[in-house]
């Protein structure tokens, strides 16, 4: 059906979106991101300087006092004061330390001592820094595929723990 002749005159003009300000914003955004982009992803592993204190601990429960001795052939996991050996881990066929086995045991210990975060490293030999970082990864990383461990926060809500013993202290830097 034809429209009335008067309406034919006024064809509705198609509105076009003005993209210019959006494009301006996108360009500025790109420059900002290019300036702050980090193409090599760098992260950190934290470690505190060991401090000896004579102060009495507030918590009277015996501490876990976890320590890891690194020798040429094995890793020795110790706990308690005085230290007693919990387990030893040798090397794999490719010469790397059995860090996966160590991690499995540490996950079990973490479930018992959920609040504990500290482990003391005592490398007894001159190992490579790269190897040391691998061992540090093993004791501090709790992967998404690992068993979930929860800790109750101040409000009584269960919070999932994201790392094992992340506070690594080198016990023998003075020697």
């Amino acid at each position: 059906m034809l429209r009335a002749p008067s309406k034919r005159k006024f064809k509705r003009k198609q509105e076009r979106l003005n993209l210019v300000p959006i494009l301006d914003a996108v360009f500025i955004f790109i420059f900002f991101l290019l300036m702050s982009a980090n193409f090599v992803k760098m992260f950190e592993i934290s470690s505190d300087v060991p401090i000896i204190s004579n102060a009495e601990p507030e918590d009277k429960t015996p501490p876990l006092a976890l320590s890891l001795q690194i020798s040429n052939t094995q890793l020795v996991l110790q706990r308690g004061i005085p230290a007693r050996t919990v387990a030893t881990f040798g090397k794999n066929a490719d010469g790397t330390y059995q860090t996966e086995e160590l991690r499995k045991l540490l996950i079990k210990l973490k479930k018992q001592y959920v609040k504990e975060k500290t482990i003391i490293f005592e490398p007894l030999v001159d190992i490579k820094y790269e190897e040391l970082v691998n061992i540090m990864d093993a004791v501090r990383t709790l992967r998404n595929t690992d068993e979930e461990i929860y800790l109750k926060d101040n409000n009584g809500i269960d919070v999932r723990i994201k790392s094992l013993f992340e506070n690594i202290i080198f016990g023998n830097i003075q020697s």
Partner: protein
Amino acid sequence: MSRRSRSIRHRGRRQRIAGIEIDITSLLDILTIMLVFLLQSYNASGVIFSVPKEIKLPNSESINMNNSGVNVQATKSKIWVDEKEVLNLDKGDRRYLDQGNRRIIPLYSELVNKKQTYKMVEEKSENAKPFSGIVNLILDKSLTYSEVKRIMYTCAEAGYRQYKFVVLGVEN
């Protein structure tokens, strides 16, 4: 001008030059992809390290963001503090150790200088951040524990309380 175009009958039909329209769809596609890529590689910590080409960082599973602090970069023969070379064994720097070969003298001096500068700024300016005591260790992966230990000992002696080992993230 031809007679036809000049004629009164055709004066309303003169052709107007149409505005050129560029198809920006493909450009927008590229921009969107670029935005996503840049957003992915955006460094939220705001800390940017310069790593000398001699240094090859070890890989790690860590996902902890970097903190700002004094940067100590080291290879087997060179040590820098905030990119300033303080020790170069290739140039013949000798007698650089004291305290039973545990402390690196030039590194210690530079770290103490840095700490004093931070403290001075902290005293003079209210808005200055307090001295954090953080030292970012950007170390070559071929270093041995005895060399790393020497650097850690020197940092501790200079009054730094926290070491941050800078590592390369592993792609998951």
